[in-house]
């Protein structure tokens, strides 16, 4: 996928001025934040389950090579095939060749961020195979030729009017005077149209929330049931998942499941949690004849053993971005690549380079809400800081930032000069405020003062007041 992360600031400005987007983002607070809080409060063991989930993933990562081998054995034993793909390109080619071998014309798809990461849809289309998104949100944005703006609610940036407009433009076989003013009607229309596609597809492609080593099982989590129809109706089922999705046992999956849905949508569990093991068996009247799992690396083995290893614990719940004040203000598209929000700020530089994605870890106040709600306790602000350090080391930070820090460092290394300079600065600023308590404009600080007033100092530095206070004791 092409990136616009270098234009983040511009993207953000456009997003802030976009009224429809702002209206849609308003739903995020009630839709996700309040629901998560309620679900967490209703489960007394929530915090200890977070700890257990983190420990399970840490254990898995520390033995990842062995669990990968065990998983592969079990899939083969169940009659499935495992394909390892080191790069996005490799993964695309493997999937295409399976589709071509079976003469596929269409492929239904369950929601998969990995498929997004490797640019699968465009690649399939270029090679004559039509991919059909079946998750309602993904279907809507596919019609609009947009990228998802959230990792679990891809169309969260749209209002229902925008959805209606897209349906009318694309579903041209249906009567023009039909009523589509309510979400129910939109849903019914999508259900009918996609039902035909489900039944006609030659190949079904899904992601996986978990790959279970104990039994060679792939697990998907949906509310709609689209992932299930994608994987049981066509002749061939292809699972595409990244290697850190490996989880040792079904009991381990059960534990992590308990924090996944609660953190994502505030549900205790999603409607359909489906465990698939291999192709159809002799006594199965339905199900795929072929079952393939494509395990993708694409840079994750490099994160292992590095200061970014903890990010491999991510279970893609979306809680971090739901709670992030930056994401809430600008939405997902502003981030400019596959993963938005705090997890995007940590992952995207890994995939597209800190030179292109540098804006993302900088678009944070380190308020820490992301880390506070992450079910896997990933220290996201810490990792964003690592990226900022790398950016600085590679001289990629903007010139203004480097010189600003340089100037500050000059004074900070000379304490007497620092104290003198700040004394002067405080008195000047206090005078400039004319006793109003705030400054509406400041030289060199227009980035701040364009949108808010700068609080005015009262005239003394902290050190001056401290000395005075100590002296009068």
């Amino acid at each position, binding site marked *: 996928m092409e990136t616009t992360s270098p234009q983040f600031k511009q993207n953000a400005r456009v997003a802030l001025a976009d009224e429809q987007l702002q209206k849609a983002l308003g739903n995020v607070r009630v839709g996700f934040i309040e629901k998560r809080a309620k679900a967490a409060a209703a489960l007394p*063991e929530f915090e200890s389950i977070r700890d257990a989930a983190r420990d399970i993933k840490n254990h898995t990562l520390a033995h990842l090579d062995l669990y990968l081998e065990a998983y592969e054995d079990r899939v083969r034993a169940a009659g499935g095939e495992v394909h390892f793909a080191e790069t996005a390109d490799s993964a695309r080619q493997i999937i295409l060749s399976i589709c071509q071998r079976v003469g596929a014309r269409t492929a239904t798809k369950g929601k998969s961020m990995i498929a997004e990461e490797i640019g699968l849809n465009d690649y399939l289309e270029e090679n004559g195979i039509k991919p059909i998104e079946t998750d309602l949100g993904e279907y809507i944005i596919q019609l609009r030729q947009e990228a998802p703006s959230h990792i679990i609610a891809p169309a969260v940036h749209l209002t229902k009017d925008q959805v209606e407009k897209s349906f009318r433009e694309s579903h041209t076989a249906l009567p023009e005077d039909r009523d589509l003013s309510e979400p129910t009607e939109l849903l019914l229309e999508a259900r009918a149209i996609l039902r035909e596609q489900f039944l006609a597809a030659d190949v079904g492609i899904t992601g996986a929330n978990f790959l279970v080593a104990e039994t060679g099982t792939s697990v998907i989590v949906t509310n709609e049931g689209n992932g299930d*129809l994608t994987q049981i109706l066509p002749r061939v089922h292809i699972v595409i998942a990244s290697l850190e999705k490996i989880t040792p046992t079904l009991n381990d999956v059960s534990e992590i499941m308990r924090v996944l849905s609660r953190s994502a949508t505030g549900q205790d569990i999603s409607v359909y949690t489906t465990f698939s093991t291999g192709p159809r068996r002799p006594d199965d009247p339905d199900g795929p004849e072929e079952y393939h799992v494509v395990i993708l690396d694409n840079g994750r083995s490099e994160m292992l053993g590095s200061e970014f290893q903890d990010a491999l614990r991510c279970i893609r719940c979306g809680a971090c971005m739901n709670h992030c004040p930056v994401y809430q203000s600008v939405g997902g598209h502003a981030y400019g690549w596959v993963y938005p929000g705090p997890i995007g700020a940590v992952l995207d530089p890994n995939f597209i380079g800190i030179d292109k994605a540098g804006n993302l870890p900088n678009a944070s106040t380190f308020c820490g809400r992301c880390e506070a709600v992450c079910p896997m306790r990933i220290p996201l602000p810490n990792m964003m800081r690592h990226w900022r350090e790398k950016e600085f080391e590679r001289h990629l930070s903007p010139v203004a930032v480097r010189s600003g820090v340089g100037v500050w460092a000059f004074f900070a290394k000379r304490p007497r000069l620092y104290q003198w300079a700040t004394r002067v600065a405080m008195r000047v600023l206090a005078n400039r405020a004319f006793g109003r308590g705030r400054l509406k404009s400041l030289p060199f600080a227009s980035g701040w003062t364009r949108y808010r007033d700068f609080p005015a100092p009262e005239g003394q530095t902290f050190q001056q007041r401290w000395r005075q206070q100590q002296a009068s004791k």
Partner: protein
Amino acid sequence: MSDRDIILGKVRRALGTDGGDVGRRAIVIARLENAPRSVIPARGQVSGNERIALFTEMAKRVSASVVRITDRAEIPRAAANYLRDHNLPARIRIGDDPFLADLLWEVTPVEQSHGPSDGSDPAGLSHAVAGVAETGTLVLTSGNDNPTTLNFLPETQIAVVRAEDIVGDYESVWAMLQEEYGRGNLPRTVNLVTGPSRSADIEQTLLLGAHGPKRLHIVVVG
């Protein structure tokens, strides 16, 4: 070198190991063998009627409807009543499950057919191998007895579960299935179903009946 070798090589280098470490292998084998349980919510750790009551309450919270009957002979009546109460066509599709076989459908107006669904059936009847009280979840397994398509294609799903098969937590389900299918084995598909299909993708409005069934009716037997 295949992609597989490259990836495993990178992972091993990152972890500072060469794959030959016997101690690490033993740890992994032990975990896969013993499948230790982590923190299990106290909520599901109740028994008898309390457990059935919890299952029922949790299922209703996610918009499933629940009735309890004493004997499997009453299943046709329970299904017929539900279809009639909701003005639904009196037609139902069933798999080959022995628990749902030889029932007296003749006393009801319901027409039954058998086998996997091709999408034209308005209602499906399945037998869930277990229920999980923790979240009001049904456990359905693939096979001729209860074809998986019956769980997803019809608009209405009626699921039967025996009261004695309702367990407290997910971990108990896996123990039960491993006993039946053997250590490390599962049937081709295990569906954990919690309520009818839904989506909130349009302006966060919760709607039922996205792609799977719009209605889920649970009949607890016993």
